[in-house]
């Protein structure tokens, strides 16, 4: 078994699980947000070259896998993953944003929901077992997700788009638009980058 890695100078007394794959110069500032990774997949979390995670909370079930592209910055969001969350390269994800591939009992009947809560209470680790099938989430390259937003299960956010702060994204978002509001609407269209400006260079 691979050794568990302790982050130098980490204020939290935890480790990076051995099934986290870090690319060149990828950075995780603290293990605090890794304490709720239950995933046994190898890898369960991929942080590509030059990506950074700053006090991001990963809440992951046994089959969860989160993939984070190069030069993407996760600035204290919550990623709740039972199956698959894929975030592209050059993305910005702001504080308090929730990206989830799992509905937490919202669509269930009252009785089913009570059953889920009774099951969680019987588990010393208090895992909330999802009752609905997870739906993978895809955030394409160069997307910016504003603070306090919620990206719901099954959603794809198109390349280059911006999600305004506190927006609830419950539908696919096309590439190169700005959406905002709750309920959301498209408030602006963005010019796709010219060929010579397109991202793709990863600083070593």
């Amino acid at each position, binding site marked *: 078994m691979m050794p568990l890695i*302790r982050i130098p100078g980490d*204020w*939290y*007394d*935890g*480790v990076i699980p051995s099934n986290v794959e870090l690319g060149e110069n990828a950075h995780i500032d603290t293990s*605090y947000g890794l*304490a*709720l990774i239950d995933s046994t997949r190898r890898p369960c979390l991929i942080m590509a070259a030059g990506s950074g995670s700053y006090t991001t*909370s990963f*809440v992951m079930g046994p089959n969860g896998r989160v993939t984070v592209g190069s030069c993407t910055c996760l600035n204290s969001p*919550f990623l*709740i993953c039972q199956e698959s969350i894929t975030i592209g390269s050059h993305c910005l994800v702001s504080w*308090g944003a*929730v990206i*989830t591939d799992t509905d*937490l*009992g*919202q*669509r269930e009947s*009252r009785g089913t*929901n*009570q059953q889920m*809560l*009774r099951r*969680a*209470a019987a588990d*010393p*680790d*208090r895992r*909330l077992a999802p009752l609905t099938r997870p739906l993978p989430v895809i955030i394409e390259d160069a997307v910016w997700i504003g603070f*306090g*937003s*919620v990206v*719901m299960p099954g959603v794809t956010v198109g390349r280059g788009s911006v999600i305004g702060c*506190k*927006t*609830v*994204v*419950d539908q696919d978002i096309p590439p190169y638009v700005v959406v905002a*509001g*709750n*309920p959301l609407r498209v408030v602006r269209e963005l010019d796709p980058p010219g060929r010579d400006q397109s991202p793709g260079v990863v600083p070593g």
Partner: protein
Amino acid sequence: MTMPTSRFHILAPGLAIPGDWHPGRVPNNIEVGQNTVIDSSFSFLHYEATGPLGLRVGSNVTLWRTALSVGPGAVIEIGNYCYLANASLACTERITLGSYVLVANGVTIVDSDFHPIDVDARIMDTIALSPTGDRGKRPRIEARPVVIEDCVRIGFNATILKGVNVGTGAVIAPGAVVSRDVAPGRWVAGSPAREIPPGEGS
């Protein structure tokens, strides 16, 4: 290095939580049922209840990274089998949750606006709150109790504002800002929150 055997610890009055990353204790003036757990004393960072009781929690409740901010003389009451994940409860008078209430990540529940709307009073408030100010001179700020009844589900990053009553079995969609009562079994979404057909929206 120590690895905690469990992420949660049984909540008890006055407890120093084993392996707690935050140097604090659970306050003494709380009442807790059986098998109710918490992850850290950090939840009580702004717990200022001075009365005999500032928090009453039932049995089989899970409190994970949840801020329990209770003002002097205020009380938060939580029933049985509730699950609160990374919620912020800021209480100046009374916030009551029934049983089987599911509070998803990032939810805020408040029973006050914390500052006056009126401009003159608000300016006075900033002076009283300044680092050398006299907090005893803060203007009176109205609090109106919040009641969340049994089996309510509150979605990610939703907000419940002062005076709101959420009826049994209601569903608050993610991101909703709720400033008016929600009748039993109804669904609301948006900012400001409006009723939607059950099962629709996010």
